[in-house]
């Protein structure tokens, strides 16, 4: 039983990020018979965030379906599908529920190509909602990107807007390597943006300057890009032009773009919402400090979640996630240095 084909793929529409993701999945399913979409509650229900809404009706329960409640099983099963030539796109409801699957990620997803010298590969995508800011229950606001980034062989993509999400997801599904695709919950519905209706792919592995400036470089990804842009807007009112770089693909990391910006501005603040210690910001800061050392006018600062679990305590959770004020405080300090 298949529902009607989606509307013609022309023009643009104002979409939320979750709609853009839904459209990308829909188009990937339509374009490539190897694509399968599965996970907990992605079938009839259309996903806890509705990212897979309508896909089962349109593409059939053989290609869009629920799995049992077991994340290691989901990712391990995806590995098997990929080994056998499919293009699995798994959903894990929240990135904090990727933890049971980390064994599969670290032991297999990132290792298969290397250990078999290219004989076997695992082109799969795992999507997961991450991050805080919307009063989710405990462990629903985790940001484990650094753990994934430390698994060589795995790519890690974190989109920051609807249009980017669509193009990056389509590229990730086509990519010959496994891609973890982390979607900021905060961005799912908070804004809309023009998204071209036709399928398009955005290159993985490219950071982007999303706002130009000369005083300092803010480096961020996912949900923190918007926070950095807010900070930059405030600073601009005071006559200080901050450059904002959206990393977008954490691995492989686009060092050239980030260093290029910092060499120009001489100052950098790295922003993420994961805990600070051993977060991905450490990697970014270390690369800047090494690669742009002679251009740096101030220490590279990090504005991050604190070294504590994301607090499950509603009335104070907003103190955990960086906001424009915290970013600006770090900017001010760096500008004084």
């Amino acid at each position, binding site marked *: 039983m298949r529902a009607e084909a989606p509307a013609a793929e022309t023009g643009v529409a104002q979409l939320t990020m979750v709609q853009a993701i839904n459209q990308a999945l829909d188009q990937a399913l339509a374009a490539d018979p190897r694509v399968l979409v599965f996970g907990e509650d992605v079938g009839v229900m259309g996903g806890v965030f509705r990212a897979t809404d309508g896909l089962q009706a349109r593409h059939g329960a053989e290609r869009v379906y629920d799995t049992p409640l077991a994340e290691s099983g989901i990712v391990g099963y995806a590995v098997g599908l990929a080994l056998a030539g499919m293009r699995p796109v798994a959903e894990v409801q929240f990135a904090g529920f990727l933890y049971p699957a980390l064994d599969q990620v670290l032991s297999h997803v990132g290792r298969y190509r290397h250990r078999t010298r290219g004989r076997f590969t695992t082109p799969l995508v795992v999507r997961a909602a991450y991050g805080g800011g919307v009063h989710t229950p405990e462990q629903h606001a985790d940001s484990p990107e650094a753990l994934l980034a430390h698994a060589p062989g795995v790519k890690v993509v974190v989109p920051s807007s609807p249009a980017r999400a669509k193009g990056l997801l389509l590229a990730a599904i086509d990519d010959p390597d496994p891609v973890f695709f982390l979607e900021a919950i905060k961005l799912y519905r908070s804004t809309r943006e023009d998204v071209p209706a036709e399928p398009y792919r955005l290159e993985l592995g490219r950071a982007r300057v999303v706002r130009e400036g000369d005083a300092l470089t803010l480096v961020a990804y996912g949900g923190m890009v918007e926070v950095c842009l807010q900070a930059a807007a405030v600073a601009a009112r005071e006559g200080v032009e901050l450059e904002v770089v959206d990393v977008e693909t954490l691995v492989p990391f686009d060092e050239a773009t980030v260093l290029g910006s910092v060499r120009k501005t001489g100052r950098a603040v790295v922003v993420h919402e994961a805990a*600070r210690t051993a977060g991905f910001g450490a990697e970014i800061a270390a690369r800047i400090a090494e690669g742009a050392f002679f251009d740096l006018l101030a220490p590279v600062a990090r504005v991050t979640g604190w070294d504590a679990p994301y607090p499950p305590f509603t009335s104070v959770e907003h103190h955990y996630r960086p906001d424009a004020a915290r970013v600006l405080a770090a900017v001010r300090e760096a500008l004084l240095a």
Partner: protein
Amino acid sequence: MTATVRYVAEDGRALRELPLAREDLVRGYRAMRRARHFDERAVTLQRQGRLGVYPLFRGQEAAQVGASLALEPHDWLVPTYRESAAAITHGLPLETALLYWRSHPAGWSFPEHVRVLPFYVPIATQLPHAVGVAHAGSLRGEGWVVLAFVGDGGTSEGDAHEALNFAAVFSAPVVFLVQNNGWAISVPTERQMRNTVIADRAAGYGMPGVRVDGNDLVAVWDVVRQAVARARAGEGPTLVEAVTYRLAPHTTSDDPGRYRDESAAGERERAEPLARMRALLAGMGAWSDEYEEALLADLRAEFDAAVAAADAAPEPAPESIVEHVYAGMQPDQRRAWEALREG
């Protein structure tokens, strides 16, 4: 295929001699009624924005309350997020439960004397803990038994398997209570597993498996009581499957209309546990409308007091979010603490 233990028919008739004394039957009903009252009032609070996302347990009162009543106060209860009924039955103050669901820190620190592990989110991960607590008890001769809950969906996780096997190997005094409520969010038990008789798994682990009508308080209580006795006698773990039904949405954020036919709800409601128990008691002359009214008045007062106490809990300080990371505050947390304090 395992047979289902049942004592009371859906219409409240006793199907055979009941293994519980009349006072216990009344006590059981009262505890279920108290739980139902909590659930209903919690939903109202949630709608008023005075609780966060709340996982309802409507329809599962017999399973949760019946199992919990089989415990002694010094036994441990290991709940999932759905076990508010079990937790308050085993002694968790209503006020604490409310503060928990309000995501207020005062609700996360259960009182010292209450032997309930905190509600938790990552599915099935609590089951190995339950085995550890149970084994610690037998190693130290504490004599406590652990009652660990998990859902039908939760049985699919690797941790469920590892815990069942550890418990069997260590002959740990733990009772696993699977509430097979038909759903894991939108996924029906038939898509979660091929053999939907979860009690059938017990044999593979070398432990007894019992399937019980999870809407029959008498049956659940008695089955779990026997399992607790076995555990206490050093005979090891038991897997109890309580077949029940999630009458409500998964949580207050869920819309079951997206994935199940809610028009069949009426039929399901007829099998719900409170009416059955009330009919049984009424038939025995042990309950009346007056009793019910009096009980409800008490429950209202108790709940109102709990809400008032919860409302009086002082707001947490921002810097509290980096406290209790380690036993002593470490330099990184200290720095964060000071930054948060300055604001």
